[in-house]
């Protein structure tokens, strides 16, 4: 009996000893995934994180639909929201009507989140690039410093988008740990200065565009950093001019002269041969395209071609988000969704019947005001013609920008050229700059959100017109005139008339007008109106046709220049992030 007791106890103790005391037993390492320590042991891993910093640019629908369409275009006076009905994408409708509230946060919190995600990767990469050559002897110091330049460019870009949308934001200049979660927004000047510092460090580290091997197209270049710096300086100068004393903007200064200098580094009208970039179509060159249908010999003009997937990474682009139709599906794809959002939905079949199901989603409908601006070859916007199609002297950019009944679109069940129907759209028009190409429609692409067309974030014409502004503001009217005329020349060469004619002298209004026509529906007009201090004048009182004839926009100065911080972000900050007063 005693023996049995001892046996029992011994078995029990033994079992405890065998298993319990082994410390390793509880050490379960993650499966199929590395820990951060084992991951960052060579340059390739850090380089992959540099790639990740770019990757957030085509995360979900953020930098195509949210930024380009909803934040940058829909609130402007160039368009009404559109869509199928007034309930189609309510938040976009509210933004168009300037009835958006803190509740309407979704596209804006995505812009916020994904800018900071990109910044997280960039900061992670920068921290590790700085001493990677100590860890990995095979790391090429030249590429390492180029990557540091790229990361600083991206850090500048993400911050700049945040400033455009939200005004002053917290600066993310390091990997943020949980103890630093509660943070304050910096004023606009502080953020712009931070971007400026990054870009100035990046410029000497970055290669020229022509030095990039073809497999590296899409990486940040010296020209991209210079161009972004022009924007930063122009924005600061405009803010200083128009918002002096407004605490949101801090101590913004007149920086026009520096802006001009960096602008001329990108493109000097008096020395254009040395530029890395050129205006596509300025010599009247024409391009083959799906748009010509079955006529293989037919071609399209350069401006039209710029707004097709074929025009990706052209010599007229300075920085583009690289979009590919990768078949990964909604949320995962690296394609863009902006083409399907901005393509008309309805068309008329051979029998003239309206068909509703074979097109895009009909957002971004050009307003009368934009059409009238186009009608006017005289940039001072007088003598408006009420019947655009009747004009022989229409600006050639019009056709690429505005679609209306009678225009053809490649649609229908078999993707043939059919007549678009805009009757159901609030303004009776649809934007065409991002019209779906043959391979971007639903039944041909993997999915509608996988558009292959790159997002043209910085175009040469944009930088030239900013440089023109800076030249004008610093009294260099000749440079300004030359730049504006270059842009007009390219437009003219893309058309068949002598319009738009070269200007003999340039005014500030000319530059504003030219920016509007050249960059319509791209994410510039709203941000430009804000920095010019013209938003109240141009947007306030604008009719919202979708709401019926009596409803006009009420612009609240001090409030509507920027979108409110995402309310969820304010809530989680425990009071450290504060909305601008009218949004509180």
């Amino acid at each position, binding site marked *: 009996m005693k023996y*049995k*007791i001892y046996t029992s*106890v011994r*078995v*029990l103790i033994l*079992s405890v000893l065998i*298993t319990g005391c082994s410390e390793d*037993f*509880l050490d379960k*390492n993650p*499966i199929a995934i*590395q820990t*951060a320590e084992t*991951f*960052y042991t060579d340059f390739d*891993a850090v380089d*992959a*994180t540099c*790639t*990740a910093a770019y*990757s957030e640019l085509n*995360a*979900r629908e953020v930098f195509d639909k949210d930024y380009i369409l909803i934040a940058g275009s829909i609130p402007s006076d160039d368009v009404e929201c559109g869509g*199928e009905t007034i*309930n*189609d994408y*309510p938040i976009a409708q509210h933004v168009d009507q300037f009835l958006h*509230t*803190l*509740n309407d946060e*979704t596209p804006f919190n995505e812009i916020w*989140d994904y800018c*900071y995600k*990109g910044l*997280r990767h960039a900061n*992670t990469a920068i921290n590790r690039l700085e001493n990677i050559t100590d860890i990995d002897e095979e790391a090429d110091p030249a590429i390492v410093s180029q990557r540091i330049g790229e990361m600083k460019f991206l850090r500048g870009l993400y911050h700049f988008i945040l400033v455009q949308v939200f005004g002053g934001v917290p600066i*993310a200049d390091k990997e*943020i740990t*949980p103890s*630093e979660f509660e943070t304050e927004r910096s004023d606009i000047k502080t953020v712009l200065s931070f971007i400026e510092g990054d870009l100035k460090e990046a410029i000497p580290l970055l290669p020229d565009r022509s030095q990039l091997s073809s497999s590296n197209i*899409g990486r940040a270049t010296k020209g991209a950093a210079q161009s972004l710096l022009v924007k930063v300086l122009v924005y600061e100068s405009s803010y200083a001019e128009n918002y002096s004393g407004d605490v949101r903007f801090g101590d913004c200064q007149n920086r026009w002269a520096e802006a001009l200098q960096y602008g001329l580094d990108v493109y000097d009208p008096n020395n254009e041969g040395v530029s890395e970039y050129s205006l596509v179509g300025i010599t009247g060159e024409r391009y083959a395209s799906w748009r010509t249908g079955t006529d293989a010999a037919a071609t399209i003009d350069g401006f039209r071609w710029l707004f097709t997937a074929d025009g*990706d990474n052209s010599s007229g682009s300075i920085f583009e988000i690289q979009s*590919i139709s*990768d078949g*990964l599906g909604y*949320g*995962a794809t*690296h394609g863009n969704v902006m083409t399907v959002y901005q393509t008309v939905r309805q068309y008329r079949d051979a029998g003239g019947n309206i068909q509703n*199901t*074979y097109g895009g989603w009909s957002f971004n409908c050009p307003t009368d005001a934009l059409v009238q601006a186009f009608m006017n070859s005289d940039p001072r916007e007088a003598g408006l013609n009420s019947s655009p199609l009747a004009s022989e002297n229409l600006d050639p950019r019009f056709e690429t920008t505005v679609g209306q009944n009678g225009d053809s679109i490649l649609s229908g069940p078999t993707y043939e050229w059919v007549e678009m129907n805009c009757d159901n759209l609030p303004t009776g028009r649809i934007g065409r700059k991002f019209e779906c190409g043959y391979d971007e*429609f*639903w*039944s041909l692409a993997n999915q509608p959100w996988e558009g292959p067309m*790159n997002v043209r974030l910085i175009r040469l014409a944009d930088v030239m017109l900013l440089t023109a502004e800076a030249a004008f503001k610093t009294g260099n009217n000749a440079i300004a005139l030359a730049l504006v005329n270059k842009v007009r020349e390219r437009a003219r060469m893309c058309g068949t008339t002598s319009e738009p004619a070269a200007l003999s002298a340039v005014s500030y209004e000319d530059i504003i007008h030219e920016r509007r026509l050249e960059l319509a529906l791209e994410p510039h007009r709203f941000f430009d109106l804000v920095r010019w201090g013209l938003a109240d004048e141009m947007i306030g009182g604008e009719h919202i046709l979708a709401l*019926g004839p009596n409803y006009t926009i009420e612009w609240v100065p001090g409030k509507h220049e920027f979108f409110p911080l995402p309310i*969820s*972000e304010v809530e*989680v*900050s425990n009071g450290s*992030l504060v909305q601008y007063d009218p949004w509180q």
Partner: protein
Amino acid sequence: MKNILNSNLLRRNKSILYFFGILLSLAVVFPGNMFGNSLKQDKTITGTVTDGASNEPLPGVTVVVKGTTTGTITDINGKFSIQAMPEDILVFSFVGYLKEEIMVAEQTMIALVLAPDIIDLDELVVIGYGVQKKSDLTGAIASVSTEDLQKIPNTGVGSMLQGMAAGVQVTNNTGAPGSNVTIRVHGIPTITSIDGVAQGQPIWIIDGVPASPNSVSSSDIKSIEILKDASSAAIYGSNGGAGVILVTTKKGEEGKPKVNLNYYYASQVAPNRIDMATGPEFGRMFTEMEALRGETDFTFPGYADASSFDAIATHDYQDMVFREGMLHNIDFSVSSGNDRTNTYLGLGYVNQEGILEGTSHQRFNFRVNSEYQVNKWFMVGERISFNYTNTPGFEEWQYQNEYESPLMNAIVVHPYLEPYDNTGNYVPNGLGQAGSPLPSIELLHKEFNRREGNGLVFARITPVKGLALETRLSGSLSFNDNYDFLPTFSYGVAPGQFRNISEIYRRYETSNGYNWQNILTYNTTIIDAINIGAMVGFEIGEGKYRYMSGRRLDLATEEPEMWYFDASTDETSPSQINESRGGGNESAGWAVFTRLNLDYKSTYLLQLNFRRDASSKFGPDNRIGNFPGLSVGLKFSEYDFVKNLGILSFGKFRYGYGVAGVNTIDDYAFYATAAYLTHFGYGFDNAALSTGGSKNVLVDPMIHWEEIVTHNYGVDLAFFSNQLTLSVDRFHRTNLGLLIRETTPGYAGWTVRDIYQEADGMDPRPYVNRGNMVNTGWDFVLGYTTNIGNIQLNANLSYSYVETIAEDLGTDSILSEGGARGLAGDICRTETGYGVSDFYGFETDGLFTIEDSDSTLADGTPFITNQPSYISPSGDVVWAQRYAAPGDIRFVDTDGDGEITQDDRVRLGNPFPKHELGFTLNLTWKMIDFSMFWQGAFGYQIFNANKYYLYNNDGNFNWSQDFVNDHYRWQDVTAVDGDGNTVATFSANTSSENPRLDPFNRNNNYGRISDFYIENGSYLRLKNLQIGVSLPKQVTKIMHLEQFRIYIGAKNLLTITKYSGMDPEVPTYSVLSAGIDKASYPQARMYLAGVNIKF
């Protein structure tokens, strides 16, 4: 045993031999002296024992001479014969009947009526790592009557517990067959979630070892106990925080082999529909909408004038997607045993069609339980089970997602839409966003197959009296094979209307694990008054999970034989590479634990528990958790003065305190990881993706156990010889250091808004220990059993009340989650000092009426002036709802600042029932048995997100009939065609309580989260009703059967509720965004008929 037989045979006359075979099984009832008595002068006593309830003879009743091993049992006619002395006392006992003692005296004939024992307070209750007499329990433990359970037609053990135990809330995640359930013991166990699914589910301990509830079939269950408070659950330490469900499966009963066969057939239907507009009603409403929009030449497609609206077809898609679902259930078991060995064999098969087309569930299960008493001190046994389930249908989350739900489409699709065209193809909807639900259902080829095996071997050594060493080794293995075949089809080009390439997705998953326990127990009694029970044990276990999945395109043909990767003819698509996935996770833990029970004269009871747990889920410095438990009891009915009152047959006061833990978080949550992910790739030069990689989770390496501290006060009372019983429990439970996903600011670069739309599908937010939560409440259980003449009555009423407060959420003082289509922002808010998952939004105060207006806009629209306003800095009056017209919803300016802003939002309700009710009634009258079970939940709200569709203002979806026939219209509306002819007129209606139809949506009536969507969810449901008839014993005897019973029943026959949706039992498995109804799969109503045969 041999000795017993020999000694008995020596002194028994031949009549005893008649019972020889049966006697083999009686060892257990002959305790004590194993060596025979000396011969005495005795006489033969004969008699009959009958059942007090049915007056039928009772076979198998044990008759023993008290204090001896002399005994017999009654034969098939209830007759017995025994030798006894006049001074002997005969003890009659039979399971389920009250024990009777009869003095022999001068009697030679005894006719005894045995009364059924309704409540057996001496029954043994399974507790953690052991058993205890029910009357000696000091913790809050609910025993579920398996007899009641098994009357409920159900295919899952979890859902059967609904309403069965006070304080145990069970909600079905969906009404789909084979669906999971969410169980909450004493309120919300924790707010920890993984991928949005609430964790902190009770652990299931089956035959002493942790196992999944899927591994046991309801018919194989002998008993279920639920440990509700931490004083009892602390012995399970780490995992016991959310409660412990102890399941004991049947073992072979002693005696000749017994066969039990139960079969039922059921038919299931959807209990109700949502009344939607008919085709003509829709056509008229749509025309009205166009007229309001200012359209002057609109005619409803194909219908020229008002008189022809009646010609618009009505297709009832709810009718098309719902069906009458069949169910076959068969259970078969064989049980046998003797004093040395016993075995139980159980087999079961269920085939259940869902009430929604395309959904079904099949299950096969098999179990063998055996035990071998090798010798006096050594016993071994095993439990082996296997089950296979096959569940075609949608995934659970799809039923809850308004974009995916097939039911949502069935409700809101336009009624005029033809389901099929002339060629049998689907018809795309040209007018609105809601498409036909038929393609998603009819083209669905998705299946979940699960095979699971569980094995347990155990051995017990009892070297001396009172001491036992038990070792239990269990292992489980499960294998899932899921696939989703997507055929090609085309009836349009919008997403969902075509697929021009076939696709097969398959996913294989394996899980395996083991658990080894060694338990030493010692029980003794000292100085005849103090009972001591001591237990010490050790446990260790590991679990592993692996998966592999892939997707290939363009199969050779679309036959099921081709639904494999090798059948793919596509060798180039990148997706096939990106969709090859695989990985896994592992966890391990060990624990030592001990328990001491002391009772003095069975009156004063004390129990002490302690468990030390170690878990791989936490970092090296935080793995250990210590979980003490203490409980005391006082059986005051043992006091003489209480006994003398004669009312109380049992009375006990209990108090328990305990600490349990929560570690139900993802594995590796403390490891900072980095990964190469497709999402991080980038297509430089528009070429294929370059590899991207980065850190992919943010972690707090110092996370540790969440602790749950419970105080439980209870009273158990029984009156009138245990006929009436009452138990009351008061609990107070505090979760300390809630393990929650910290809401990381977007600024840190980690935030996700919707993890399902994250490219890598991972939730990168760190788990942190933050904040406390308190659950308090009451449980009441009232039981009554009696015999009225021939009727046996048994009724049980349970009621529980629970309230949950997020006491302190630390720096995350507000957690907001849960959205719905068309609504801006999060619906649910969990905030320090308030409830969990409160609905949060705007309060409404009816509609603006024409009386609220004293001016008009330029177009003649009345302008509402009876509303809040403020004066802007420029001196203008700014109206709170400046676009409102009569018939629009008036939102309440709760802070009185003249504006409707975020600050006006208030709490609108809570999705978790505060009151839960269960009522069971069993009646037996002769051959007839009747049972009824009501279940109810009260004191909660539902966010009826369907109303966004049913009251829409753009005609994209069909309207509810209620809205079409009655909505506010401040003036007559006339619709005209292109020639100026009146197509239809709609007269003013200024008395309606439904908002106006405004195609411009100027007032944003529905886009705001408001109490427009809030409804009372309370319901009382007749969960089960069953009537059975057993053939009389005389008849079954001829048929050589022990029992033959046929029965009919109904489940969910009646639901009393004010809720307007299909089913008030709205899923709450996502704890921070619970109770949002998005056309959830409703519970079926079931009618069944079955037969139960025993022989």
